[in-house]
């Protein structure tokens, strides 16, 4: 199964790209998606995650076709 991964704001700059695609395995969690793509870089503290445009816990499991996003604390308004 595959998941589509997006990065925003300072996290996108730090990583140097806006998107990734990952061949994930069943039962993979959001934080495991990060770990699979960034073996040398722990998830920065305070990073927020979303699955299919809904805020998600890092332990949430992803499914085939999900869009997973990682981004820093929001600063709108």
């Amino acid at each position: 199964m595959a998941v589509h991964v997006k990065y925003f704001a300072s996290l996108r700059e730090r990583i140097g790209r806006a998107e990734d695609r990952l061949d994930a395995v069943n039962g993979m969690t959001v934080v495991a998606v990060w770990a699979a793509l960034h073996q040398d870089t722990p998830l920065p503290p305070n990073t927020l995650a979303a699955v299919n445009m809904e805020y998600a816990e890092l332990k949430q499991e992803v499914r085939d076709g999900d869009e997973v996003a990682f981004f820093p604390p929001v600063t709108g308004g």
Partner: protein
Amino acid sequence: MRVELREAPFDPLAELGHYQHTQAELSGRYGATAVFIGTMRDFNDGETVQGMVLDYYPGMTEKYLWRIVEAAHREWPLLDTLMVHRVGELQPTDPIVLVAVWSEHRAAAFSACRFLMEELKSKAPFWKRERTSAGSRWVEHNTSG
């Protein structure tokens, strides 16, 4: 109700007047309108800010703004809500956000307007990047109020 992301500068008071005049079902029904306008300053954290970029998550940002508006309408007896938020390149003095709420009486309008702004600030996926004479920097967190 209207929720809108705007790429270009806008005049919040003109926007408010136009919206209110064109909502026929509002006419004669509201006794209270509460308005919040957020405006870009030319300084932050002790530095002069020359410009700003507002980044967002297309799709999720709109979804959360609507969700916040719907939550306010469940919580208070509101007649209507208008929310306009800038994205893209901003200059100091540019309006960033307009929130307007119409209700029969003031309590609901005041409370809902505050709620909408606090929820927007803490949940809606927007990120500010400021440009100063020393370069540009991402704003790391919002102020507490």
